[in-house]
């Protein structure tokens, strides 16, 4: 049995069984290793991707249940992701970097629904994303910055 999947605009037919979590299909079958494994129990956010524009923990979503297009950190041409990546670079956010794909995808989800989030709103939205290197303050600053860029650019 095979499953059809659209990832970053490309269509794939995958061979993994439908109950396989999307995370492992992305990493092991499609070679999209920018999405990371941290816990497998929805408690770290390292595996965050978008399904149909909404942030999900890909370690928890069986590939057979994926209900829309998947966006990962490797996506190109996504204005929101690009603005976040530029802000992340500007603020020199990443230390080890392992959590940052998930952080960026989670932040993109926040900005999609809230173009000008407050500190508290950012803290709440990002609470499920651990960073063992402790980069939280620069993540927060970078999200504000990206939000500003997107508002000015009229994108979003």
């Amino acid at each position, binding site marked *: 049995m095979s499953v059809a999947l659209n990832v970053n605009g490309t269509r794939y037919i995958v061979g993994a069984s439908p109950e396989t979590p999307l995370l492992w299909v992305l990493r092991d079958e499609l070679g999209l*290793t920018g999405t990371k494994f941290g816990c497998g129990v929805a408690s770290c956010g390292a595996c965050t991707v978008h399904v149909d524009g909404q942030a999900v923990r890909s370690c928890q979503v069986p590939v057979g249940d994926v209900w829309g297009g998947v966006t990962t950190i490797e996506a190109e041409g996504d204005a929101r992701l690009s603005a976040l990546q530029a802000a992340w670079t500007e603020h020199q956010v990443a230390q080890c970097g392992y959590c940052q794909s998930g952080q960026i995808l989670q932040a993109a989800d926040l900005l999609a629904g809230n173009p000008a989030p407050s500190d508290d709103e950012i803290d709440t939205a990002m609470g499920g994303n651990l960073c063992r290197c402790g980069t939280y303050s620069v993540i927060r600053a970078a999200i504000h910055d990206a939000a500003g860029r997107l508002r000015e650019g009229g994108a979003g």
Partner: protein
Amino acid sequence: MSRLGTITRRTLLVGAVAVAGGAAFGIYQLRKPVVNPLRPEDGATLNPYLIIDQQGITIIAPRAEMGQGVHTTLAALVAEELDADWEQLRVLHGPPAAAYYNAALAHGALPVPDYAMKDWQRSVTAGIGAATKLLGLQVTGGSTSTVDAFERMRLAGASAREALKAVAAERLGVEAGVLRTEAGRVIAPDGREIDYRDLAEAAASVSVPQAELRHPNDWKLLGRSLPRTDMRAKVTGQAQYSTDIVLPGMKFATVRICPYLGGGMAGFDASPALAVPGVEQVLDLGDGIAVVASNTWAAMQGAEAAVIDWTPSPLPATPDAMVAQIARAFEEKPNSTMRDQGRPDEQSAGIEVEYRVPFLAHSTMEPMGATAHLQDGHLTLWVGNQAPREHVKVAADAAGIEAENVTLHTPFLGGGFGRRVETDITRQAARIAALMPGVPIRLTWSREEDMRHDFYRPAAIARMRGAVEDGRATLLDAKIAAPSVTRAAIGRLTGRNLGGPDKGHVEGAFDQPYAIPHYRVAGHLADLDVPIGFWRAVGNSFNGFFHDCFIDELAHAAGADPLQFRLDHVAPESPVAAGVLEAVRDLSGWGAPVPDGTGRGVAMVWSFGTPTAVVIDLTRDGAGPIRIARAFMACDPGLVLDPAIVRAQMESGLIYGLSAAMSGEITFTDGRADQGNFPDYDALRMFNAPRVEVAIVQDNPHMGGVGEPGTPPAMAALANALFALTGMRVRSLPLSRHAEFLI
């Protein structure tokens, strides 16, 4: 002294060799040069510090990049002297090689507090530094990388620049002295210029001039916050970690090893694992199994399904029995008394208390993993590690081949904190690859496997006696009991049994810059065989907490302001340490009345050559949970090469320490860790992490580390702030067992 002089006199020589279309520059130290790890036949891929070829400039930064920014700072050392264009550089980790030994590791080897070290003592450690080369330790750890590279890598850049100028001078028919260099080009006074790439090949055959290093006032890159060389890759998902290597025909593996530490495996039934769709093989690893499948998830499902008959752990069965075993060490003679001033036994103690800290896991964001491929008797490994040469040896042993048949790549590390010095993952990956020759293997541990098979920060107990008189501390008498990390970890790393006084065991307590007349710190080594290892700040992580919290107790007993009390006792011993206390006082506005519902605590710990002071503000709304609202930090690592990286490391160390002090705890039942994943062993998250401000002072005449010194004072400052807020002196961690924090 004269013999000392010859040993410690630096004999750094720069040499060059030809590589395809260019030159590679490296350093040789000591009278007997180390074997050049560069293999010219490998073209532009291998080299000591710097390769210039037709592709451009590549700097080899032979330390693991685990988030601490070391690739950026090491590259800047070379680029500063070379006049390379920062945006155009490539940085590689480079191969395992004795030439990359970490000489600064030995700076901590003398039984003398860093703050009180005399110049002659520093020169003795330079001699011991040469000994670490003999051990061949290419270790990323101990907050030493920059200190170690500071001179060597600048020299490599300077000498290469002069060699390129020598070639250009000949081609342009001018004296080398009139040439200048900029952005990867040599420029003549008349404006003619030659790109380094076009000079490199010829530069390989000129004898490399020994160049003078530039004065810091002339630096263009060093001393500034540079764009990190790894940033773009890390925000686009392109940065590769151990399990991101994609090889054709790759299989996916995980392991399940006996969780009852020290126990083993009597037998197993693989059939339930093999029944999981996608599972292809179950391998016997002796103390557990490896499951190989068509994807990692199938392998993990299979590993869980296998029925395994474990044999029991020899460890004490309960957490309490473990603490009792550690406490037993107090009954034996101390292993060390590295501070012993006055007559502590003759003083009566006004305060006599016991402190305790638990075992801790590293819990790096990236669980342990590796990629391995054994093909035609040659093993290629990709594993994030902090000691590549040791990993090569272990891999060779596990695969049953010679070390020269192992190629080790060090990709990015998804956090290290000391965990990736350990070679267990490499042994497993090599073993699995050897059992499946020709098949590339990606081995990924589950989080549970990672948390239950750590080399933990040990639990420790301190028994403290102290007294104050007329506002001054007169007695501080500390006895510290814990299993020895130094012996466990260095023993595993080098295969040698270390005897003698164990400095690491008491660091953070015996070496603090306080003037106290009766002052003693004794270390007792506990006989408890839980696997323990280097954990961010190592001994300082518990001793800093014990020592500084006890200083806080003495301050309150003396009726003194805790910060001023510290300052009064520190200033006579170390103006540098006093400087960070003053800086944190000014930064935090210490002394102004704090609002109701706010508790403010301070701590200062000198570790890894860098005194670091922290002020923590806790707030609480009525009966609500306690919030770690703000943190102020001041550190003095001496000369700072990249202020943004220093600030980031300080904040990172702080959050790591606060996370552990607030809620971190590993306990063992029947020798198995009770905690397996983040829900049982969490860390600060964005909503409960403090707002942080960092002040950097640069009065320290010696360069110190920055990766670890933020962690110890964070823990103590948190407990001291809890006392300020609640009046409750909590002497055992984690604090969340005693007070309700926002989680």
